[in-house]
């Protein structure tokens, strides 16, 4: 059981969350080329170690989060809201 520190709700069991995917993908414009979209949708690194990934606090605040997690040890180094505006607001507050 991973425990994820939600920036809004505090540390919770990972069973409250749902895994999204690779948080480093920059999705191209909607009208970008097939090659660009192909890479964004289908090409994934299989990282051994720290990776940024999105999780949604589904059974909590429903916020999408960017979690920096070690795929070997499940160590979580950082968690921030995926919404850039909210992440900045939280940062400014602290």
């Amino acid at each position, binding site marked *: 059981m991973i425990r994820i520190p939600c920036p809004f709700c505090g540390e919770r*069991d990972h069973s409250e969350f*749902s895994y999204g995917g690779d948080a480093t993908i920059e999705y191209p414009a909607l009208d*970008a080329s*097939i090659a660009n979209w192909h890479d964004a949708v289908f090409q994934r690194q299989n990282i051994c170690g720290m990776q940024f990934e999105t999780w*949604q606090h589904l059974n909590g605040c429903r916020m*999408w989060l960017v979690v920096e997690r070690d795929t070997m040890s499940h160590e979580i180094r950082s968690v921030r809201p*995926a919404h850039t505006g909210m992440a900045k607001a939280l940062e400014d507050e602290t």
Partner: protein
Amino acid sequence: MSARRLSTGGRVDRSQTLSFKWEGRDYSGYAGDTLASALMANNQRLVGRSFKYHRPRGIMSAGVEESGAIVSIGEGARHEPNVRATTQQLFDGLVARGQNAWPSVGFDMGAVTGLFSRFFAAGFYYKTFMGIPPFEWGSGTGIWMQYEKLIRKAAGMGDAPSAPDPDSYEHAHDHCDVLVVGSGPAGLNAAVSAARAGLDVILVEQDFELGGDFLNQPDAEAEIKRTNLIALIKAVNVRIMTRTTAFGLYEYGVAGLLEQVTDHMASGSEHLPRQRFWTVRAKSTVLATGALERSIAFGNNDRPGVMTVAAAGVYLNRYGVLAGEKIAIATNNDSVYQTAGDLSRADATVSIFDARKEVSHALGEAAERDGITVQLAMAPMNVLGSKTVSGLSLAIANGDDWKAGGTRSCDLVLVSGGWSPVASLLSHRGGKLSWDSENACFVPNTFSDRIHMAGSAAGVWNLDDCEVSGMVAGAAAVKDFGKSAPSMSAPMVGGWENPIRPLYEIKVAGEKLKSFVDPQHDVTAADVRLAHREGFVSVEHLKRYTTLGMANDQGKMGNIIGLALMAEALGKEIPEVGTTTFRPPYTPVSIGALCGRNSGSHFRPLRRTPMHDWNLDHGATMTDAGLWQRPWYFARDGETITEAYIREATTTRSAVGLCDVTSLGKIAVQGPDATEFLNRVYTNPFAKLPIGKARYGIMLRDDGLVMDDGTTWRLSETEYFMTTTTAHAGKVMVWLEELLQVRWPDLKVHVTSVSDQWAGCAVAGPKSRACLAACVEDPAVMENDVLPFMGVIETTLKGGTPCRIARISFSGEMAFEVYVPSDYAPAMMQILWDEAQPLQGCLYGTEALGTLRIEKGHVTGAELDGRVNIDDAGLGKMASDKKSYVGDTLRKRPEMLREDRPRLVGIFPKDRQQTFNGGALLCKADTVSGFGEGWITGVTHSPELGHWIGIGFVSGGHEAWAGQTLVAADPLRKGNVDVEVVSPHMVDPGGERMHG
């Protein structure tokens, strides 16, 4: 009589007699007994038969590592197989039987398999079912099915009960600062140290009494220490959980515990669960889980009357039972001498055969003072007797080897091959073990992540040292919280005066010995060597090939011996061979505990619409739609389901029908950028949707496949009401949230699920407008110019119920969807139903709904299964080429544009009198094989057309198969039917009725 209860001594309460049944006969024991100690007190030595060879087996240990006394307890639905008699607390009325024996453990017909044991060696299954050379006789599935029946009967453990489990189970959760596992000398001290520093401590003990090895000491001093420590932990508010096993340790200090709440009671309590499955989140963990004594492989070392030395000490000192009168102890280490003295003082005749060539003078002298004969450089070779022990033939050192060394008569053989720290829980967390050659055991490495090993689990052997080790671990846990704690130096690993002599197997040239490594799975030393010869040399392969360590003791006693034998065969050292990984659970966990309350009707959540009771009152038969219960059909006057849905569909097409559509997902989309957001999400344009109009929309995934469809209603400049399919409601909500938060944070839009806030009813059929006009306060709002096709209004029903009405159609008829706040749902249904009846209307369920939509070729979740793109679904016209939307690009990748992709079609039986099955594959008439040309997703009887019809997909669409006959292939249900493929729009293809 060889085993007996002593008149004094032990912790059992001789004033409380408990009766129990064993193998159908009555016996008695005392309060404080385990089933094993009570059986031993009654001199019941033969308690089971082995897994493969049906060899007689007895009690081999006094704890969780038990490999012999695996029994079944309870009767009927409460019958439980594979219970360790050594950990089952005795209660009055306990009923127990031996396993894997017929007719009884004493006389077992299955023992005949032992005569053929050379055919049942390691890999027996793999070899035999490849067939018997030279012609591979007996290979193939059919024959295997026959073998399997026989083998299932002959091999295996206890029988599972077939009746439903009458007991209840619970899940529970907790948090603490420090979790201490084990309440022995180390655990108790660790708990005291941590709690004294003000930390919240939970102490978990698998036994029914606290104290661990304190309980097994003969002297009063240990008992005083134990009671003092227990008083201390209570004084500092340590939370104590007995009969609770920490079976697994996970990341972030999460531990899985199994609490056996009523397993020690004659009848379960109606107010208590039988077991509780705890998830405890601890910030720091101390593992004081003890160590287990190993056996040694020698001839017939599995006979009833062979057990570990420590076990005999436990039976004597804790339960007041002397396990034998003429006792031969075989050892390679110091740990047995204390127990030997205890046994001797209890009037047993004790001989020690110590494999070491020398031990300190003091050790030998102390033993002799106790009247024990000690013979060095001797080891056990072969046990004499079959259902009981009559003697032990010995081996005597011959250089580095062994030679036969005479026979001694005895009635009990005790063995100690050394001790193994219990580090399973640390291993669950990825903690590593290192081989300590001085103590011949794997000891845990220090682990950085707030887990502290203590006592014999850390390889510390002496009781006093274990207490110190517990204090050190407790202090380390305190430091995890940034608090100061007294600095103490941890005791060294080990603690014996004389070094152990590593000894795993006694081999004597010329002697053919049946030496067991894992008695519970009947794995012998010869099996390990066979595995080596056949190339299974990795420990992981060895385990799987021989099943070594795969029984319910998970190799607690035998694994190290197996590793040592493999190392020897390979000419390597034990650490080079390594260990298999321990995985949860440490001891077996019942499926019931894993399920908790989530069984039967509580297996998954149940969702009822707010008009559920109203539907039932009006004759609905319900069906499951995901988690929802929806009306299936409303049978009248003994109608069958088919008669009912055909009537409902017919009435809806000719008059008016009402259907509960509350289960559709409903999402409020609000904000200044709501229009732009929807325009990106849906394939069709939403930028110019006027207020008061609805639009049918398709949304795609990034990869260009269809995610969902539904209607979205524009309520104001900045507010929309989106509906989704029942099946995808949750998924769509998550998707919209992801898009807004992760991808397009600049859009000012908020989405809110309002599925539970609004109840909906479809009103469909040519008289639907008349029906609704009679229901609303102002009938003028229902006029065609006020509420045209795809129009939306917010108005009130008679009586003042606020509602939203949209003129949208899933049935293909003129139709409306009416939504009211959920609390008004029964009132809405009643108003609508009161006006529908004079119009000869009806209520309809999902079955008729299916008929109406299949006739029209409308898609649902059965078609939008995640493999279908918008063109496949026949909805290509919904894809705008004037704007970009999610999935726009990848829906045009080459694979998506192939002409032969399966496309939505209608299906008619060639012979219109025939029917066919949903799920059938569509195949060419001459090639009914493989994946076919397509598949059928739905079948119904069409009252409009007067015959059975279907909907599905065929490669290339219906145009590609015009005039051809296909087969709806359903060979398993013997339902191959000739069909023809038609346009999916089977009724009213022009859509005049819904626009009318």
